[in-house]
């Protein structure tokens, strides 16, 4: 695979505590890469190292095939978690200033900014002071400034905090657009919902160490429980007869002449096998695999167990639906 960014064995410690211990991550080109972890895990430290704001104590960093160099900051766009603007400065002037610092010539930056401001309905605010903007509008300005210089690598630290749902959707759409146009995106968050929606790859950092990484689909498969939830009607025989070396019946709830059941498929039994077994004996209304959500995986990896494990195997109902309604 082609990697746009690689960190190898990166460590960083501050007096008193280690922020990163031997962390290696590889960000595939053109992907959305989720950097996950609880607060204080070391995500921001890693991001600052990628941005060359601070240097690592140990380890090597690569941009494409080259060692990371100061000039690469022009190829990187960074939206920090804690972000602000000069309150007394005019919006347009300020965006222009930040774009110039990223190496975009003033005239070109102005033209591009006008287009983006137009797109985000910010144009009337060009000559207003930043303190007159709402928080959401200020965030939009920051987003525009982050992406204006057409960076190959974009780093968003908790980008959705402070946005209302409409703007979150707008932003998600823009992030997907950027990816589709060839940008690579590192996306740091502890909001797992957005991870599943957007990320192709993830790395999970806890207590300064990377404890999990890889393709989101692969990770989910690794954590699959092989438990299927089915809703059946017109049962030809008691569902309990399914019990065998291949299937374990975990739960049966009859209701309105129908039955909802959770079945664990064992010994590598494929979902299709289960369907084939079920089809002769009942009408299958719904069939879905109970897959742990990224949230569950996150909690399981960090704390060692699934959120409700042990009680009733009640997984949060994020299923891969195999049958549509």
């Amino acid at each position, binding site marked *: 695979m082609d990697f746009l960014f690689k960190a190898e064995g990166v460590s960083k410690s501050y007096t008193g505590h280690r922020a990163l211990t031997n962390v290696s991550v590889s960000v595939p080109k053109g992907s959305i890469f989720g950097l996950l972890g609880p607060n204080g895990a070391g995500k921001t430290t890693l991001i600052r190292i990628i941005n060359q704001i601070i240097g690592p104590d140990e380890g090597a960093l690569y941009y494409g095939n080259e060692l990371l160099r100061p000039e690469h900051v022009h190829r990187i766009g960074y939206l920090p978690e*804690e972000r602000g*603007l*000069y309150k007394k400065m005019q919006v347009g002037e300020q965006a222009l200033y930040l774009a110039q*610092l990223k190496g975009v010539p003033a005239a070109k930056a102005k033209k591009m900014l006008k287009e983006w401001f137009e797109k985000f309905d910010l144009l009337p605010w060009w000559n207003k002071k930043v303190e007159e903007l709402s928080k959401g509008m200020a965030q939009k300005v920051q987003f525009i400034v982050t992406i204006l210089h057409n960076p190959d690598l974009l780093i968003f630290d908790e980008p959705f905090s402070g946005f209302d749902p409409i703007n979150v959707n707008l932003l998600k759409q823009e992030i997907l657009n950027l990816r589709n146009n060839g940008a690579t995106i590192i996306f740091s968050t502890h909001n797992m919902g957005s991870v599943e929606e957007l990320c192709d790859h993830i790395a999970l950092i806890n207590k300064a160490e990377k404890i999990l990484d890889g393709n989101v689909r692969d990770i989910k498969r690794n954590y699959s429980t092989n438990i299927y939830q089915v809703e059946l009607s017109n049962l030809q025989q008691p569902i309990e007869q399914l019990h065998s070396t291949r299937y374990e019946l975990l739960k049966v709830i009859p209701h309105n002449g129908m039955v909802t059941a959770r079945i664990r498929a064992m010994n590598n039994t494929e979902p299709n096998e289960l369907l084939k077994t079920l089809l002769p004996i009942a009408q299958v209304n719904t069939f879905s695999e109970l897959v742990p959500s990224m949230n569950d995986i996150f909690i399981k990896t960090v704390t060692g167990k699934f959120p409700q494990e042990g009680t009733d195997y009640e997984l949060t109902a994020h299923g891969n639906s195999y049958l549509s309604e």
Partner: protein
Amino acid sequence: MNKISIIIKREYLSRTKKKSFIVMTILGPLLMAALMVAPALIATLSDTDYKIAIVDDSKLFYTAFENTNQFTFSPLETSIDSAKLLLEDRTYDAILHIPDIAFQSPASLRIFSQRSVNVEAKSHVETILENEFEGLKLTVKGIDPQILMAVETPINISAIRIDEAGQQAADHPEVRTGLGFLGGFMIYMFIFLFGSQVLRGVLEEKTNRIVEIIVSSVKPFQLMMGKILGVGLVGLTQFVIWVVFTGILVFAVRSAFPDVFAFTPPQEVYAPGAESLNPELMQERLDAAAANNTFAGEIMEGLAAINYPVVLLAFLFYFLGGFLLYAAMFAAIGSAVDNEADTQQFMLPVTIPLIFGIVMMQSVLQNPDGPLAFWLSIIPFTSPIIMMIRIPFGVPMVDVALSATLLILGFIATTWLAGKIYRTGILMYGKKIDYAELWKWIRYR
């Protein structure tokens, strides 16, 4: 380099475009002038009309007391006991009683008042009576006071400086003192004023949380230097405008009142070793010198003797050097704290040497070539202020070179240290910072 210039541009324009800058630039010199004139003005205003009644039993001295701006004298032809009653209804602030025997025994003189008597009034009255008694005694001893007046000779020695080239010129140390004081004080003010602007700017960026966006594009050191240089240029701009303003003002006043400032450059009246001048020419030159012997003339002569290019160049250098030295420290403080209230604990090491420089001004002015003046003008932390005080008196080149070199080394050192604190500090929030912590930051790789 290009990025630093973008930062400098923003720092410079965002400050010079502010209304407060324009107002300060115009009002600054006026405020300074007001600051100097106001105390004298207030002094003359506040003490007007201290009313003193005089009860002179001897009737000899009534005419001696003339009203002034401050004191009004009223002769009273009553007995002292009835006069005392007038104190109660505040007709008079004080009553001077000159008994019959006063001339023989001055200790019998009394001044009565309800509140504590005005000290100035007392000494004013004492001076008048001393002169009167003296005159009376002279008359009694048969000496005409007119003769005494005629022999009194006011002495005002003209100071002459001989420079290295052997040129002689009239010298007015008072003018040099004034100029040195002004220069030193301006440096002190500029460093404080613009240094704290740097501090506030850094703090603003940190609390605004814009700093992380910026340092993802430029190095923290570039941001810090950009800010320091930008603010420094603002200070320089202000100074240049003030100098130009003053120049125009002086020119305008001189054209408006040419007589007051009339001044002929002094010529040598007497030069040792030169052939003696003929008596007429000598008298002519003495008269010319005497014409300059007015207050305005002396000041003009003193001002004309100052080497302005040197003073201005020195001011620019020591302002820039001192500013860079201190601004770096101000920037480090701004980066280390989370809000303005926390800056206090770190301000001490920055303000102490500055204030020390100001406190030492008086001693340095009294002996601008002494060891105290020398050392304080060499050590980088006080040299900007103290050297500015010495410059109008003329300073050996060696001293200036040493002082300038050390100042440059000094600001390189403080900037380097401050940069180390700054790059860690700007990203550090919610932590209580002490000196031990700052030392750790300096040692980070």
